[in-house]
């Protein structure tokens, strides 16, 4: 029969509509307003999962996010998600769920044999065995353990859904929408504060959702809140972490209640909320009691059974046994009875109970001073054994639902994240939030206040105080009709465990028993953190939300100390688990990092540039219409430069405008060499160190006027160099009159290089005499190309005669194309990053692999650039003894002795004296095929490198078992006299 446990009436479900869903392939029906858990209960499904270690049958224990057992695999295919709590999964039409951690089926799970041998598998058993023989761990034991462990299965394909992150500011954030939360939001909103009210449930109301008599009040509060423009209501939003500086993280489940997210809608949205003040009205969760076989499907928290009846209109069983240590159990029992569930008995550990008479009046058997010593049934509860705590025999009661009311744990998680200490409440036998250390206050049940009316009043007070603390002090009067009733006494008798034979579970998901905790204690794991880690108690997906305190209590008894003294394990974010996608938001896949494109990017695309990510930049490696790979296109471009002329996009170089009377002085202190003496209209190569004496960056800097320089940096270090300059100017030498500004993105810059570079440019440059005398090497001058203003720098990275042409970014393509057109007679070609690298290695210019933060100026052969007089960054530290040791690796060139290209040299090879030597003398930093010398060659850092010039060594690359004989030479493989650049 469909929905055989659905009550005839009641609940907040929409009975007019039916939703179809399947669990383990069986088709069922439910209604809008159901969770998967309530719908499964409605259909009489008891067994929903298997436990982690013993594979014991497990059912639904709670009705909320604290659920330890009812974890299912939700959806299928790429959208499947493991470990979903059935108690918070909203039912939708077509929902597909399957059970987890069982084989071959939920009903028959082979691994449940673990339960039979459980006595040999106590807490931490794996630390004591699986050690022999040693090699068996990776081969045998670990694969077995790994397969057995884990819970659900992950989808092995990319997530098709999208996520987003949003930011919010508010004066008062209220977490939780029960009576306290609604009242707090209302009070703060009336005071004029900007309020966010976040509720993890899909309906606002918290405990009010179980109280039909307060429905009108709940509605009126929500209507009033909706009418305040500065109050934002966020249902389906779990606040998962309270961070420093009063920032909170929350995850909104935007589309999880739908089969798939609507078009252009995200699955989840993560909120970063900066709250001036926060009211934590997060309620409380009921906690279990440990007794033998307290994990059977059908053992449920009493409040959950009541919730299923009142909110969802389902009977969690036909005949309930209630086991309680406080009055709350009576309330649940009465609710069940009112809903039509037979209540077999209330087993109360106390000798006196206020509700006992009322229960008896209702015809319910009440056994005071009693306890449950066993639960019968396998895959479903069939009854319980009880006994009097005051002596006497055991007796058995039949029933298919065992409701446990062990007291309440106020939800102190978010308060704990702030490092506020917890405070023990003897009446509740629970921890409450202590004195706040951040801008928060707890209200309502979360603060140990019970009863709807009292919670509403407490919430209103907290809301007003929060608003006032946030600066909203003239609170206008507002009409807050107080609800009445619900003044149940929350006091419990501190009773945690029934001492009887059998497995009494403390942590249901991780299968931790009370005996496990006692074993940990016997073995010296007596501190709560040690006991937790040794037994894995409180470390499952529910993080011990129902059972954490119970574990502390069992440990406290073993230690002979109070629970208060033992304390709780530290609560850490997240209150409930958060999807990875929610954290990543849009920063996934291609959007992990922004892309920087040069002003010439689209030209490169149109002209078959093959791109490479270099940092955030996309740069053309080379150009090839056929998208060929290998060295051919690179060699073609490099030869064109060496023989004729090429043009390369170098816009990514960092460019910093430096102005002021003291600009020259500033640069003198920044660079190892001198810039104050540089003539206007000239460029100079400069070298910068870090304060520890290591090379930081290099580049050419030009003097544009007496008081203005333009610095170029490497592409990689542009941002760091500017920050470094700002630091020095603002904090070390504030007296200098100098200003700095990045202009990297303002300029398109291109290098025109090759023996015919001048000829090519003369075809298009106007207003500047490019003759060698008028515009010599290291000259700088303004001109026009194709009507566009350009600045020319006669600098060379390739070793050829070269000009860098800079033009405002918007003119980039026009100028680039004009040069290409003008250079046609000279055979000009564009060249990419690979050819650029090839040419600079041949020429012996250092770049990233040499400027890796591990090399000094001396290491790189730049010691002459260290000026003798005056201060500069790194001057003193560069002289430390080990840094000037002659034994340090220093820059040289290396060339393959064999010119055939067959034995390949590679970057990252080490240099050794003999082919089979293990003693590294240094390493190859940059390697290329040479177009000039027709062999493999490159740069290397080698101990006593310059003294070894002319020697032969071996470049060894054990990762590929390659050894290549090389000759050590000057790093300047091409034109060591520097004639070409001056031609």
């Amino acid at each position: 029969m469909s929905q055989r446990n659905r009550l005839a009436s009641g609940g907040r479900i929409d009975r007019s509509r039916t939703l179809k869903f399947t669990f383990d392939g069986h088709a069922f029906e439910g209604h809008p307003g159901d969770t998967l858990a309530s719908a499964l209960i409605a259909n009489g499904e008891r067994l929903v999962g298997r436990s982690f270690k013993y594979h014991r049958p497990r059912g639904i224990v709670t009705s909320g996010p604290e659920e330890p057992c009812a974890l299912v695999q939700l959806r299928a295919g790429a959208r499947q998600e493991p470990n979903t709590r059935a108690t918070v999964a909203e039912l939708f039409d077509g929902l597909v769920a399957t059970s987890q951690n069982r084989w071959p089926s939920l009903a028959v799970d082979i691994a449940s044999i673990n339960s039979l041998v459980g006595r040999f598998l106590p807490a931490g058993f794996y630390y004591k065995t699986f050690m022999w023989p040693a090699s068996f761990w990776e081969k045998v034991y670990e694969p077995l353990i790994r397969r057995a462990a884990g819970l659900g299965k992950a989808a092995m394909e990319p997530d098709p859904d999208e996520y987003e992150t949003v930011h919010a500011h508010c004066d008062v954030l209220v977490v939780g929408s029960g009576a306290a939360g609604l009242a707090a939001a209302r009070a703060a909103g009336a005071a004029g504060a900007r309020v966010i009210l976040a509720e993890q449930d899909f309906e606002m109301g918290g405990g009010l959702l179980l109280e039909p008599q307060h429905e009108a009040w709940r509605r009126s509060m929500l209507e009033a809140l909706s009418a305040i423009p500065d109050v934002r209501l966020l249902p389906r939003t779990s606040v998962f972490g309270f961070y420093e500086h009063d920032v909170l993280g929350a995850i909104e489940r935007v589309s999880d209640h739908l089969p798939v997210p609507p078009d252009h809608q995200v699955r989840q949205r993560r909120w970063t909320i900066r709250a001036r003040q926060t009211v934590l009205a997060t309620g409380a969760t009921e906690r279990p009691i440990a007794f033998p076989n307290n994990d059977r499907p059908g053992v449920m928290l009493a409040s959950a059974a009541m919730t299923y009846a009142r909110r969802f209109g389902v009977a969690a069983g036909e005949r309930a046994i209630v086991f309680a240590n406080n009055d709350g159990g009576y309330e649940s029992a009465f609710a069940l009875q009112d809903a039509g569930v037979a209540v077999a008995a209330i087993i109360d550990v106390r000798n006196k109970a206020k509700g006992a008479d009322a229960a008896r009046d209702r015809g319910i058997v009440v056994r005071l001073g009693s306890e449950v010593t066993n639960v019968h049934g396998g895959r479903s509860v069939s009854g319980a054994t009880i006994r009097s705590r005051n002596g006497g025999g055991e007796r058995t009661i039949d029933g298919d639902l065992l409701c446990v009311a062990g007291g309440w744990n106020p939800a102190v998680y978010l308060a704990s994240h702030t490092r506020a200490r917890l405070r023990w409440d003897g009446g509740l036998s629970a921890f409450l939030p202590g004195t706040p250390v951040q801008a928060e206050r707890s209200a309502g049940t979360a603060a140990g206040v019970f009863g709807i009316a009292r919670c509403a009043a407490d919430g209103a007070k907290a809301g007003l105080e929060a608003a006032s603390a946030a600066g909203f002090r003239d609170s206008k009067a507002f009409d807050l009709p107080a609800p009445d009733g619900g003044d149940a006494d929350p006091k419990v008798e501190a009773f945690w465990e029934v001492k009887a034979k059998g497995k009494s579970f403390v942590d249901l998901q991780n299968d931790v028993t009370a005996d496990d905790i006692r074993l940990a204690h016997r073995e010296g794991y007596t501190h709560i953190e040690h006991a937790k880690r040794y037994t894995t108690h409180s470390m499952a997906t529910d993080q011990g939300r129902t059972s954490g305190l119970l574990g502390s209590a069992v440990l406290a008894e073993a230690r002979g100390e109070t629970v208060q003294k033992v304390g709780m394990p530290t609560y850490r974010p997240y209150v409930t688990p958060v999807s990875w996608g929610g954290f990543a938001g849009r920063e996934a896949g291609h959007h992990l990092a922004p892309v920087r494109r040069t002003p010439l990017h689209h030209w490169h695309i149109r002209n078959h540039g093959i791109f490479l990510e270099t940092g955030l930049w996309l740069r053309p490696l080379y150009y090839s219409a056929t998208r060929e790979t290998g060295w051919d296109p690179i060699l073609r471009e490099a030869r064109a430069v060496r023989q004729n002329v090429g043009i390369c996009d170098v816009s990514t170089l960092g460019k910093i405008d430096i102005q002021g009377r003291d600009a020259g002085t500033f640069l003198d202190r920044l660079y190892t060499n001198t810039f104050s003496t540089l003539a206007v209209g000239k460029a100079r190569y400069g070298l910068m160190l870090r304060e520890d004496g290591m090379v930081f960056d290099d580049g050419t800097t030009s003097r544009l006027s007496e008081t203005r320089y333009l610095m170029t940096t490497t592409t990689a270090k542009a941002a760091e160099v500017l920050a470094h300059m700002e630091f020095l100017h603002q904090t070390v030498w504030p007296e200098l009159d100098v200003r700095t500004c990045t202009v990297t993105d303002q300029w398109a810059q291109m290098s025109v290089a090759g023996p015919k570079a001048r000829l090519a440019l003369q075809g298009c440059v106007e207003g500047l005499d490019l003759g060698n005398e008028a515009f010599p090497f290291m000259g700088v001058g303004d001109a026009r190309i194709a009507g566009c203003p350009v600045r020319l720098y006669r600098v060379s990275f390739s070793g050829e005669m070269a000009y860098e042409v800079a033009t405002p970014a918007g003119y980039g393509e026009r100028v680039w194309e004009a040069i290409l057109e003008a250079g046609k007679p000279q055979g000009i070609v564009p060249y990419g990053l690979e050819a650029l690298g090839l040419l600079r290695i041949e020429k012996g210019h250092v770049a990233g692999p040499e400027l890796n933060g591990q090399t000094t100026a001396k290491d790189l052969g730049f010691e002459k650039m260290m000026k003798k007089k005056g201060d500069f960054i790194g001057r003193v530290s560069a002289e430390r003894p080990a840094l000037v040791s002659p034994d340090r690796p220093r820059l040289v060139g290396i060339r393959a002795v064999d010119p055939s290209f067959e034995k390949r040299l590679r970057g990252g090879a080490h240099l050794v004296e003999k082919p089979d030597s293990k003693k590294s003398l240094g390493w190859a930093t940059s390697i290329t095929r040479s177009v000039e010398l027709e062999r493999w060659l490159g740069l290397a850092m080698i101990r006593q490198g310059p003294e070894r010039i002319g020697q032969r060594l071996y470049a060894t690359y054990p990762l590929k078992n390659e050894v290549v004989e090389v000759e050590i030479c000057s790093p300047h493989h091409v034109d060591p006299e520097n004639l070409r650049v001056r031609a």
Partner: protein
Amino acid sequence: MSKYSVFRLISEGLRGQTGWGRAWRDPDPKPAYDVIIIGGGGHGLASAYYLARTQGITNVAVLERGQIGLGNVGRNTTIVRSNYLFPENNLFYEKSLQLWEGLEQDLNFNVMMSQRGVINLYHSDSQRDAYARRGNSMRLNGIDAELLDREQVRAMVPILDFDNARFPIQGGLLQRRGGTARHDAVAWGLARGADRLGVDIIQNCEVTGIRRDGDRVVGVETTRGYIAAPKVGIAVAGHTSQVAAMAGIRLPVESHLLQAFVSESVKPVLDHVVTFGAGHFYISQSDKGGLVFGGGLDGYNSFSQRGTLPEAEHVISEGVAMIPMLSRLRVLRQWAGVMDMTFDGTPLICKTPVRGLYVNGGWCYGGFKAVPGSGWCFAHTIAKDEPHAFNAAMTIERFRDGAMVDEKGAGPFPWLH
């Protein structure tokens, strides 16, 4: 003291597991010891263990202000490897890895050392060359390393994003002998092992002062009274500056926050340790099924031991970029440890200007894998009053001399290492 074995487990099973005693004793401090180790974390416990095991010095106390093993040894991402560039580092970490390989039998405690392989992904030619330089250095020093191309990586870790990545994967550097170990078990196993050799592990005993006689140490003041010892070793990574200051020593160390995360348990999806080369992200799957992962430092001095939101965003974004299927899984917890970061990223295991006082610290975020090697070398350094060749470079003086061991080339900026 009972020996651990499957036979013992079975016989205990037959009598309700009631026969197990304490894994380590809970002694009161004696008035004097031959050596005092300050700090009951991984390095302190390992140092005491190896003092007894390899140096024959058993009159040793480990003083822990709280409970052992709850600092960084209990807060890390459990990765063990020796894939370093410089011989000053890779020979040391290789010694440590070799000790790991026999640790379970040596300690009679299963620390679940799992040599599942560590893969560092590379995303560009220059990164490949830098990794190759490191891998070749390892191979020349007798350490296993393999350079994988893209297809080899794909075959090993098919769930990585090879098709839609912002920074496409080109390949990886693999150390097969690298892997993971159960972090808590290492602390407990070392404590039990040291205890069995006679070491006193004294919990709830905070050192409040270091007593000197002239230029040499004579003992320590603690919350449980004065305890004398001619040799004192500091092994309190995270708080090295604070304890060293008790002896008037200032160090090239700053404390920074490093976070770790774990996801909900799932059936096996990842069989190796994988690190992202285009950012700061590393991940492995624990035997229990949780994906354990971490990233870079928060980037400012901190002793807070508290997770932060910006770093969670960075780390998890990179995780989803590297492995898109992770998007639908859920992250369970985030937490943080206090790293003492040196100014070149390499630790300190050395003598100090105070005679008889030794320091073991500056672990940056490489401390866990070093635990046995660090203890072994520190024990040697304390016993012989001179470093072993493996830790000879790990001095305080190296900064004054310019002999930094800077694997990253990041310079004197601890938060960048």
